[in-house]
């Protein structure tokens, strides 16, 4: 248990952003000014003999538990003893001195904590240095800061356990603060609102309804959280108050109605967030898998083009027409070997393709399966050919870049290509200015 609590405190200490480190010589620096009565003068030429087991763990805590011994321990004593013990088969080192003990002072949940790292491992290679913690204080009589006014310090109490209890109590106080709770409300509202916005953006009726509900509820929670954060007074959401009023109308007692109001509010947050997240993930995840592109579509300057030929030429000119070469390729698509010719940027092995959506627009495009003619055989063939061409290019070349003047085309085929596993295909939006 001791080990666990110490490990927890040590972990907290290591994570504490305000940690300050000081060498032993600097431990009494004005910034923190703790007293370190447990650490004797390092200039002492003869270290005191140790009064407790060496390497038993937390010598600092043991020192605290042994009346009268608190000022007698110094790790240098251990170093000297071991270096003189021939049975340990350790070559005594002439450089055994003790400049290496390091003391850290840091704040954990508003408690000042001192950590001592022994330098034994510096002098004795096989030795494992350990680390101990205690609370630091400026009080000479209570160097670990554990004594409350009027109370004698019980030396048998584990200082680390006490530190943990103090930290937990402080944490409870912090969490119970209305302003902190207001901050939590704001955070929860942001999460709910974000999930709701994603869900509302999905093209499904359910997603839009749930997403809209989540956004509205998140606004309510966020406004209450903000007011609570500013005023420091508890502010209830309109949702909670409305549910409470409804429950009262149904005959519930005032206490039960309030519980229903507050519980229902929390449930609403959880339900809206979970529902919106599920809806959004249901659509976003396949799209993300599907689309090597859509997270952000690179855009190049618009070109003047009325026809696919003009568009292709204009796109090529953006690269510099001389950069392009035609290349024969063979590719394996679904087990079949197919031949083709592509416009390629040589040396880089990049195939470039331009897809133009004309005046008819995407809603009437032959390549759009949702268009009026989208299910006609010739349209299906055209749609299939777009995919098969991409599959051939993807198989034969290192990169494939599709330019299109229509974002709907890009959105649709980036999904189609992604679902087909074409990971090296990219889209570029190159608008066309019809003239």
């Amino acid at each position, binding site marked *: 248990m001791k080990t666990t609590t110490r490990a927890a405190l040590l972990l907290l200490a290591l994570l504490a952003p305000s940690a300050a480190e000081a060498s032993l010589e600097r431990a009494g620096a004005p910034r923190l000014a703790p007293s370190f009565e447990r650490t004797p003068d390092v200039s002492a030429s003869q270290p005191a003999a140790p009064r407790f087991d060496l390497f038993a763990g937390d010598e600092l805590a043991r020192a605290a538990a042994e009346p009268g011994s608190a000022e007698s321990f110094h790790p240098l004593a251990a170093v000297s003893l071991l270096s003189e013990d021939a049975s340990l088969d350790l070559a005594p080192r002439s450089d055994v001195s003790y400049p290496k003990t390091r003391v850290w002072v840091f704040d954990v949940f508003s408690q000042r904590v001192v950590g001592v790292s022994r330098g034994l491992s510096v002098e004795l290679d096989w030795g494992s240095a350990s680390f101990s913690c205690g609370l630091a204080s400026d009080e000479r009589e209570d160097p670990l800061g554990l004594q409350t006014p009027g109370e004698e310090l019980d030396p048998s109490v584990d200082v680390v356990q006490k530190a943990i209890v103090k930290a937990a109590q402080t944490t409870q106080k912090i969490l119970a603060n209305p302003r902190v709770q207001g901050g939590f409300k704001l955070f929860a509202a942001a999460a709910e609102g974000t999930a709701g916005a994603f869900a509302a953006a999905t093209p499904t009726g359910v997603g839009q309804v749930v997403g809209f509900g989540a956004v509205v509820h998140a606004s309510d929670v966020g406004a209450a959280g903000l007011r609570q954060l500013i005023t420091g007074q508890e502010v209830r959401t309109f949702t909670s108050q409305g549910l409470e009023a409804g429950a009262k109308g149904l005959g519930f007692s005032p206490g039960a109605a309030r519980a229903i109001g507050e519980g229902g509010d929390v449930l609403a947050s959880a339900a809206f967030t979970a529902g919106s997240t599920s809806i959004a993930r249901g659509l976003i995840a396949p799209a993300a898998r599907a689309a090597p592109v859509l997270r952000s579509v690179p855009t190049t300057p618009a070109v003047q083009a009325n026809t696919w030929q003009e568009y292709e030429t204009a796109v090529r000119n953006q690269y510099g027409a*001389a950069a392009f070469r035609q290349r*024969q390729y063979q590719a394996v698509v679904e087990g079949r070997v197919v031949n083709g010719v592509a416009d*390629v940027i040589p040396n880089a092995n990049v195939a470039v393709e331009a897809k133009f959506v004309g005046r008819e627009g995407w809603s009437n495009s032959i390549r759009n399966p949702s268009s009026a003619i989208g299910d006609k055989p010739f349209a299906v063939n055209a749609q299939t050919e777009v995919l098969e061409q991409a599959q*051939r290019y993807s198989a034969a070349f290192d990169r494939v870049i599709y330019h299109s003047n229509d974002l709907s085309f890009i959105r649709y085929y980036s999904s189609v290509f992604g679902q087909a596993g074409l990971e090296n295909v990219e889209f570029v939006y190159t608008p066309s200015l019809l003239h």
Partner: protein
Amino acid sequence: MSTLTIPGREPRPGRKYLYLQNVSATSFRDLFPTIALSSEGPPPKAGGAVNEEVGLTIPSGETLWAISFKGDLEGWRRKIIECAQGRKLLWGEISEEHLRLSDGRYVPLASCRVESSDTQGA
């Protein structure tokens, strides 16, 4: 030696290069589409091959044309070599600034003439 880029001289991750003999760029364009279909062995399982339109003419006069391939690297290599062997053509690959030929010759790239049959994209 020409300043044209010699395919395969610089390694590209996931892509390998072989050179296949033919008499001209035009006839090589006729030969290229048959490579993966040119023998009884199984075709490559995945990926593709590209006619790089670059030829190396070795000092003895033969010209070999560059093919790059990716995906099923072993499968494509096997098909290109089978294509060469079936037609009794030389094939080779670049190794340490030399063209190592299927007949055992080891020709310094510096002694080769590089030619391009590029067709500009239309």
